[in-house]
């Protein structure tokens, strides 16, 4: 009979509190895993796939992805808007569902750093990427949907700013840019408020829709 209660060193199997390690691709990241299996650390070597991958927070949660490690360097650049916004979209969705992401690389996008503070930043390129200990600054920039309005809470600057969006065209653009979409259709007010990021003709919504609550929920 196997021992009843054994011990092993922390992170012996996966480097963190995850039962499995899965080497996968951006496209397969939210494919449904075996039901009942424990949470996984997903390791991705090839970040190019984020250009087209349909990664959502709900998908990550369903798949049991508890952390993601990107092993290749990532360069976010206006020369590759599709890949850059696709990758930011992935960071946004992972943050929304509390999944830590470890990646290293460089950001050359023409935007104020403050706009991205709610997303996990790149680690220095001098060492391999590591898995952060926990999710990145949960709730720093998010929105909540109500009947005919959207409440945006933005603490990226260190001061809380709450905005109520009512204009259906503005709300529609915020929703449409959940995945990269043509920037020409985006009302300028969203870009001016730093809620949608335009990159070389494409645009992405930066706040995530709140899917999970922190404990205590009154902290955000």
């Amino acid at each position: 009979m196997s021992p009843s209660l054994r011990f092993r060193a922390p992170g012996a199997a996966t480097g963190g509190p995850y039962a499995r390690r899965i080497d996968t691709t951006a496209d397969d990241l939210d494919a449904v895993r075996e039901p009942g299996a424990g949470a996984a650390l997903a390791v991705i070597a090839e970040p190019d796939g984020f250009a087209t991958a349909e990664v959502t927070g709900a998908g990550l949660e369903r798949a049991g992805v508890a952390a993601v490690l990107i092993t290749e360097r990532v360069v976010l650049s206006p020369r590759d808007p599709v890949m850059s916004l696709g990758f930011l979209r992935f960071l946004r969705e992972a943050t929304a569902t509390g999944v830590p992401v470890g990646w290293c690389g460089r950001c050359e996008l023409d935007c104020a750093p403050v706009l991205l503070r709610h997303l996990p930043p790149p680690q220095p390129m001098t060492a391999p990427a590591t898995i952060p200990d926990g999710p990145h600054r949960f709730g720093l920039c998010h929105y909540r949907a109500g009947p005919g309005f959207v409440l945006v809470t933005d603490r990226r600057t260190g001061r809380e700013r709450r905005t109520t969006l009512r204009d259906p065209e503005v709300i529609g653009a915020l929703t449409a840019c959940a995945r990269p979409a043509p920037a020409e259709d985006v009302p300028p007010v969203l870009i001016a408020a730093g809620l949608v990021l335009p990159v070389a003709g494409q645009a992405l919504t930066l706040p995530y829709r709140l899917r999970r609550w922190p404990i205590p929920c009154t902290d955000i």
Partner: protein
Amino acid sequence: MRICLVSMPWHLLETPCLPVGLLHARIGACRERHEVADYYGNLRWAEFLGERTAGEISSADYAYVADRGIWHAMGDWIFASALHDDPRWQEETFRAYLDRRGLDPGTSVRMREHAQEFCDLAAAEILAREPDLVGFSSTFQQNVASLSVARRIKRLRPATKIVFGGGNCDGPMGPALHRGFPFLDYVISGEGEIAFVALVDALAAGRRLDDVPGLAHRGDGGETVVNGRAGMVPIDLIPQPDYTEWWQAIQASPLRGELTPVLIYEAARGCWWGEKHHCTFCGLNGTSMKFRSKPAPRVRDELAELVRTYEILDVVTVDNILDTAYFRDLLPRLRDLGWDLRLRYEVKANLQPEQLDLLRDAGVCHIQPGIESLNSQVLRLMDKGVHGTQNVRLLRDANDRDLTVDWNYLYGFPGETAADYRPVIGQFPALVHLQPPSGITRILIERFSPHFERPELGFAERRPAEMYRHVYDLDPAELEDLAYQFESAPQGIGGATEEALRSGVAAWQRDHLDSALTWQADGDDIVVFDRRTGFPRQEHIVGGAARVRAYRLLERPRTLPGLGRELASAGLALAEDTLARWLGGLRDAGLVFEDGGRIVALATRRPSLRARDGLPADDWLIEAGAEPADTGRPVAASGTRAG
């Protein structure tokens, strides 16, 4: 008639006053049309303090008095100077009271310097509306600020009629207020929806007031005459509250940017548990225990209208307990709205996982389950109807669903002993990953509670709580009728046990934020990841079909024999001593909680999310316009960091 409804400090700044909103709407049921205005004196007070102190006294200082001061009549003391026209009223008594308890007075002494001037201003602002009748809604710490302004109104314009109502007026407290403060024309005891309409109708028609239920009024000689009370207000007569003027006041307030407005909603009154088993310490339902709830479609429609009208997704319900029928007919309706609500609800602690799922899906992410204790014997003494292990299970399952749990640890129950507490306190370190109690309190005796009504339960001798001494100047017999909280010689635990309980809770609160204990399936095994403060960082592997099954069975509290029977019926029988030894190992590792012969597993399915991490650092370094140093993508070796 012109009517002004008033909500004075220390009503919370973020929320509308439910009684004012309800009565505002109910006045529409009067025989004649009347003009109604609401006066949010609580908001005005916070604004006034900000103006007078150039912002040094803030809304956070207000919140301190409203939240912490409530147990010490701090807010009432601040306005007692205005009530008694004595700027130094009982100052030494108050300071000595706080000193003895090691309590921080916050800015209360500075606030008090402005109380008299503010009450003059509030009276003038209310009178500027030229009301014929001014109604004060008074609950908890609203009494003295309301009395102070009422007295000024009566002095400035004696023809204006003053009426008090609210929780502070229930039962004998209402007539006591009427006797003690002659500038009050009327006090309504009990629920106001029918009585207030009857009062307004009678005043408008110039009729006698004998038919107004629950009303204290003046006889020909100025003496207090008390009418008989009516029955409970039927749920159909409880209207949708009208918060229009609160919303306008918030929008116009200079404090607007500091406050996150939250709606207040009432779907039910009374307590269905209390009707059968009145928790011995609870007096919150006053004289209206009978449970009544609005039909689910109506609740859905009213909530939807409030959310739509005020564009607020945060709602606190004031129901003393969630109607169990709402799991069937309300929560699915709220879920189907598809809105990102943040609802707060009081619930009973014995909820099943699927009920917690429904709460979360409906947007109820904040619950107050009345946990009170983790020891079954003490819970039995308070007639709570739950087991200590059920409470722990709720804390565990709430974490998995991102539900915030508000609870307090209560002690001081007649009949409890140190032996009830020691084993539970010893297990606090193992619970550190679960949400700790926000406070720990030796119970007071609340009016209307079984402890108050039935001296044989252990509190034979009682007196009004000490805090009333720094507030009122009343004959002791009158104070006995006016007070809500009472105290007696301490009952139950004390000394070293009390100290161990308090320090155990303090350690739990301190270490909670950095702790997690999670489990996952790993092939045929179970891995428990221990990341709790105070425990070695390690991974426990539960192996073997019988033990894996047993661990899963312990997600529900079970006795050792019960667990053995379940395993046997699944064809996985273990000898009782083998099972007991294995459970002993789990207990030693802090993986289960045991109380009253039942055992429950402690690990959650995933760590909960935290939002507290200070101000953002400048960690997104953007190399604008920089040429990449390399054209390809250097491949880094995959690396992981030991968790």
